[in-house]
């Protein structure tokens, strides 16, 4: 009791009015999460305002519920402003006092956020109490310019063989994951986070998973999964669930990248996953229509491209002078009926440095991850691919493309020559090798060894349909008997002649034993 009394006394003694004069406005009308405000003549775009419920209440009532609701100014008009309400819009009423806060929308960022689940305003939603020791950072900021950047040259391993081999991702790259619902987009993103556990802690990227418009149960499952596998030790989750206001869903990706930028500026690597930007676009469309901005194609506002480009441009690989940190972005886009030529998919495809296209047909055939190799591409990742992976995966894309052609031919050709049959079998084995169960990312050195075995005929003694079993046995064998070879690949990130020699010997031994 004494300490409380002392604290209150100290607060009263130290109290000085926040400001003698404030700029305020009055809510003229409100509805659908948008407030029209009179006054606030000097307000600026994306400035925060506070809807103050205490102004016209008695002290007793005000203290019972003194929680304020914040708003974000998004329209400056001739006779007032329009603001998006960031919170419970039912608490905002006509005639309510609105105070300017004089600062742009900011969120708390810092090391203490790691392992936490926060909303787009940085408030924790995981029930673990407030986050201390953070600094404020504006949600919107200018992307780094050309001078401050360096080319993408370091890989980020997803642990998914098909991606690391054929569409490699570099640190600082923006790689789109696109596909219909239920094709495994989130799985790829989560596996990539899980795989970072095998990275050395000094180079391990800090992961930020931004859930936009997702079911809360799905986000809870993902968080539990990450926590169970130890990945929350380097992960921050920003969530704006489907039940949250459209403004939260619009802001969530910007909050995620602001958190990551803080670490990037300290020279650290970050991985940000936006799951998904189609829902953000829909939320932004809703807000824009309610703000009476003119609708364009598919009723999206005219600046929908800029919404995504300014977000994804903030992913960067900084120059050494700037600390050398990076933000790798894995935006996710959901397509309808595999249509990648729709408005938002084409926009984001043109902004990003490549895409991983997941197809529902392949998924239904049991090919998982259901990557369409023909349409998937990485424009800058090959520069960052490790030498070892580059050496073993060079031929894969071509072989798979030839196999797909032959497979189509096989549908109507009855007699096939031995060479064609061999090529088809080899393609089948390769396809089987690239299959991978979810939640089981593969360490880079193991993936390299497996792909080496697949592309050099070490699975040829097994029937194509048993390749997956053979691969599982091979992984066990290598873990048990080829630690030295795997370590050599891991340390050197290359396949030297000696390592190849030793690996071949081990693989031959495996084939003989099987």
């Amino acid at each position, binding site marked *: 009791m004494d300490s409380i009394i002392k604290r209150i006394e100290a*607060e009263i003694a130290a109290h000085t*009015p926040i400001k003698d*004069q*404030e*700029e305020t406005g009055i809510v003229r009308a409100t509805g659908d999460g948008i407030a029209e405000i*009179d006054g606030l003549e000097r307000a600026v775009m994306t400035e925060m305002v506070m809807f103050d419920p205490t102004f016209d209440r008695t*002290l007793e009532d005000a*203290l019972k519920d003194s929680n304020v609701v914040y708003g974000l100014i998004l329209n400056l008009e001739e006779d007032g402003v329009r603001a998006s309400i960031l919170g419970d819009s039912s608490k905002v009423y006509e005639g309510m006092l609105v105070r300017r806060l004089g600062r742009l929308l900011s969120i708390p960022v810092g090391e203490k956020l790691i392992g936490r689940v926060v909303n787009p305003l940085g408030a924790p939603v995981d029930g673990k109490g407030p986050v201390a020791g953070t600094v404020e950072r504006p949600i919107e900021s200018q992307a780094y310019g050309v001078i401050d950047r360096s080319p993408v040259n370091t890989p980020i391993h997803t642990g998914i063989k098909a991606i690391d081999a054929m569409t490699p991702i570099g640190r600082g790259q923006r790689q789109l994951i696109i596909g219909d619902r239920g094709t495994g987009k989130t799985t790829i993103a989560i596996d990539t986070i899980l795989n970072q556990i095998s990275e050395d802690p000094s180079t391990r990227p800090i992961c930020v998973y931004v859930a936009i418009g997702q079911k809360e149960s799905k986000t809870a499952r993902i968080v539990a999964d990450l926590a169970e596998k130890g990945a929350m030790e380097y992960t921050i989750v920003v969530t704006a669930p489907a039940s949250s206001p459209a403004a939260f869903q619009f802001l969530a990706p910007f909050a995620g990248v602001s958190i990551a930028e803080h670490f990037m500026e300290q020279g650290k690597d970050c991985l940000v996953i936006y799951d998904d930007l189609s829902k953000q676009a829909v939320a932004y469309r809703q807000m824009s229509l309610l703000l009476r901005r003119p609708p364009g194609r598919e009723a999206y506002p005219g600046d929908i491209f800029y919404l995504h480009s300014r977000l994804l441009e903030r992913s960067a690989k900084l120059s050494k002078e700037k600390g050398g940190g990076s933000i790798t972005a894995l935006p996710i886009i959901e397509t309808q009926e595999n249509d990648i030529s729709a408005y938002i998919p084409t926009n984001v495809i043109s902004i990003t440095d490549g895409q991983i296209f997941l197809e529902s047909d392949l998924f239904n055939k049991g090919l998982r991850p259901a990557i369409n190799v023909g349409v998937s591409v990485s424009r800058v990742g090959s520069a960052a691919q490790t030498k070892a992976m580059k050496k073993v995966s060079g031929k894969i894309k071509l072989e798979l493309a030839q196999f797909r052609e032959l497979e189509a031919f096989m549908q109507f050709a009855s007699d096939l020559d031995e060479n064609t049959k061999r090529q088809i079998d080899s393609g089948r084995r390769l396809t089987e090798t690239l299959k991978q169960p979810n939640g089981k990312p593969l360490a880079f050195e193991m993936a390299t060894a497996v792909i080496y075995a697949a592309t050099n005929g070490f699975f040829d003694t097994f029937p194509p349909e048993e390749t997956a079993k053979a691969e599982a046995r091979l992984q066990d064998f290598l873990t048990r008997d080829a630690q030295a070879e795997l370590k050599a690949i891991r340390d050197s990130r290359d396949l030297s002649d000696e390592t190849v020699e030793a690996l071949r010997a081990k693989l031959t031994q495996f084939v003989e034993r099987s």
Partner: protein
Amino acid sequence: MEKAYAQALTNVLAKGSSEDEVVSSLIKHLKQAGRMKLLPAILRELVVLKARTTTLGATVEVATEAGKADALKEAKEAGIEASSAVVNPSLVSGWRAREGGRLIDRTGKRALIDIYRRITS
């Protein structure tokens, strides 16, 4: 268009023109221009403008009757001039004045709420 008409009417009236003259001139003009349909919309805009002027007009509130004169004087010194002050006991002590988008809040209620928020946050 109706906003512009309403704004123009307000400006003309603020300069001291006679209300009857302004209204008859407006109707004559609208008839000549074939825009009589705009009249209800102009009326709506005028109502909005009036409401805005009232809500954003100069007001001074004081906690007690005794503080009225001082509050009006202090508010005037701070740049807000109101003809009278309204007693609002919920302010606890002091006064507050508002005009346009400007608010000067020197009430005990505000100070107490600030302290409460700081302690409980």
